């Protein structure tokens, strides 16, 4: 057993913390939250310069050859500081999909640009019902000569408003088994039949409605096997789930740290409020939640990273972390009191993200049911 980070991971963590404090202050986070794009090109370039976009990809595509576990270490820190922008979409959702299923040529052409930060990509998965079940996939792709023609609407596509390309998951065959007949297509965001509408959300993350109206896609843009896309998506969803959990762990840790330091400063009734037992016990519950979330998430990340069966671990991590981050963020707000309820304060930035993180890739109920299935129930 080795339950600590290795030296490179510790260094990555430390340097990410320092970089983000400096380069991604909360003022910028707030501006990007309120902006249409959510993207700071300057910050994006600097992150690319640090090799973050290439972290989990092989060196031959310009990546750093890191593991999924390395990526979660970085995401933990990105969650700690909050980094708006399409990193998760481009690297986790699109990049890992291309890596898993793309042809050599696709990887050379596109993955290398993702690694360099020159291309932003995202994954358009959930249909109008907003669920992750393959049965609910309602965008269709029909073969037409050398092309495929896509029709349908995708909901909650992250960062489609700034993406250069979209990986679109579409049904290419009707089948009694909903997992059969699903394919993935690389679609140029500039395609005329594609309409992207930014959705206004609680977390002010850039989720989009994307409609496809006779969108023509050349056959060479099929990613992976025709009709064989679902196993790829399943695996990417698992990876995205654990990556999101890691990001949430970071957010929970930051919420705790902020609340504890405020509890030490804020004086009421002639003593720091952190001297009140109620506040102390809130903090004790928070740190317990944060540590539990972190270790269960790292176990899931390690398991998935090693290529071991990880369905149980990943669902456990997401179910627990979704609830735990929410509990932590609520208690942090309780400690901050009225000041935390203002737009100028940082706490709500985390509180919003706790909810967004809980919702995406299945909430706690969804993953508990997955755990029940894995338990053989």
């Amino acid at each position: 057993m080795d339950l600590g980070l290795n030296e490179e991971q510790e260094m990555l963590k430390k340097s990410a913390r320092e970089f983000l404090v400096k380069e991604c202050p909360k003022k910028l986070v707030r501006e990007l939250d309120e902006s249409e794009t959510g993207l700071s090109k300057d910050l994006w370039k600097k992150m690319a310069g640090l090799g973050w976009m290439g972290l989990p990809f092989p060196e031959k595509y310009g990546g750093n050859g890191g593991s999924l576990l390395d990526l979660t270490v970085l995401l933990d820190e990105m969650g700690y500081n909050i980094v708006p922008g399409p990193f998760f979409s481009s690297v986790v959702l699109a990049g890992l999909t291309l890596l898993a299923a793309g042809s050599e040529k696709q990887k050379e052409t596109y993955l290398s640009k993702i690694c360099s930060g020159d291309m932003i990509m995202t994954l358009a998965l959930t249909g109008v019902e907003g669920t992750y079940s393959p049965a609910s996939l309602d965008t269709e792709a029909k073969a037409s000569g050398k092309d495929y023609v896509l029709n349908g609407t995708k909901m909650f596509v992250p960062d489609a408003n700034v993406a250069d390309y979209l990986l679109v998951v579409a049904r290419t065959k009707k089948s009694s088994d909903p997992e059969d007949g699903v394919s993935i297509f690389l679609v140029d965001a500039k395609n005329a039949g594609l309409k992207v509408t930014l959705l206004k959300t609680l977390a002010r993350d850039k989720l989009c409605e994307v409609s496809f109206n006779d969108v023509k896609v050349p056959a060479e843009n099929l990613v992976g096997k025709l009709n064989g896309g679902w196993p790829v998506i399943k695996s990417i969803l698992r990876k995205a789930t654990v990556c999101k959990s890691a990001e949430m762990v970071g957010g929970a840790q930051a919420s705790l740290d902020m609340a504890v330091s405020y509890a030490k400063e804020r004086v009421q009734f002639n003593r720091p409020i952190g001297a009140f037992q109620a506040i102390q016990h809130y903090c004790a519950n928070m740190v317990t939640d944060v540590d539990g979330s972190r270790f269960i998430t790292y176990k899931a990340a390690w398991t998935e990273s090693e290529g071991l069966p990880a369905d149980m671990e990943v669902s456990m991590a997401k179910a627990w972390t979704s609830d735990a981050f929410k509990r932590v963020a609520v208690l942090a707000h309780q400690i901050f009191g009225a000041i935390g309820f203002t737009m100028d304060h940082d706490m709500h930035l985390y509180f919003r993200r706790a909810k967004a993180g809980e919702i995406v890739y299945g909430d706690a109920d969804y993953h508990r049911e997955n755990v029940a299935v894995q338990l053989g129930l």
Partner: protein
Amino acid sequence: MDFRLSEAENKFRQEVEKFILDEMPHSYVEKDLYWPGGYGAISEFEVRDPEVEKFRHKMGERGWLTMAWPKEYGGGGRSFVEQAIFFDIVSYYGAPGMDVSTLISGPTILRFGSEEMKQEWIPKIVKGDLKFWLAYSEPNAGSDLAAIQTRAVEDGDYLVVNGQKIWSSGAHVSDCGWMVARTDMDAQPYKGTALFIVDNKTPGITIRPIINIDGFHSFNEVFFDNVRVPKRNVVGEMNMGFYYLMVALDFERLVISMGGFRRRFEDLLKYAGETRRNGRPLSQDARIRAKLAELAIEIEIAYVLYYRTAWMMDNNLFPNIEASEIKLVTTILSRKLADVGLEIMGPFGQLWPGSDHAPLKGRFSLGYLDSLSAVIGAGTSEIQRNILAQRGLGLKRK
């Protein structure tokens, strides 16, 4: 025991309902995003709407804004149970109604103010002519209200006020502040604090907006720079303000938007029945059924505590335990209603008001944020638990 409304109470209830349905200004209904229990999305604290003023005047004419006051002062001479019924209906429809002037200032003046003061202020309050804001909290005096630092120094017929208030809901759209300030920094607050009315137009007052996390401007910081307040605006004895304030806290007991909870829950119930996911209505999911049932039960708990409190007040019983209990129960409910709502709505729950696909106008999404204020405003949950333990159960502080 009889949990039914009496015939008269029922008639009154119908009268209020009809009035609201007939008279409620459309402009108000349109923009209403109030979340029950919360303090951040109350549109009356944002802007002053002439239509709403008119509506309040009509309520005032009926004596409804001050319905539990004695008739001699223009009150409605009605019972607290009737007031509770009124609030229930008003908040069910999200209508504007009572405010600081009718709920806090008026009753305090009636109890502690001079005859002169009553003559000057009470008639206007009864009619709904005045909007007051609450000038209690300060940057270093939140839960610890006794720590206020704003000073009021006597100077002839005036008090000269210097200092700062914060979290002042609707100060920028009100006429007067209902204010406490220290008259003697060395005395205990119970013996060195004045409670008085300050006109917003007095020179030296600067109001700065605070935008809350709902994105609303309802809170303010208010700065006082040598603000001269006539002494006749002081309630009762000069230095007894803190005592009056503590007593007045009891007047706020029944200010709970029970109807708001009921309404939003009905919305959610309807949504769960009508929305299909994975091939069946959400209402067929056993876990969702259980969650909705839990909410229904907690709303019922709040209702029994609510009417019990009103009934106790009508019977000269002192419901101080119940008041803190209702606050705890309803503020927890405020959060839970939003949280469960968002869980049920899945990814659609996060859509913000104004989004095309947002279920139920995005109210739950906003409410999810707004409910953070419920457990903090008007005495945090921790303060309520302290009160219950110490005042209610007699546990010692040390």
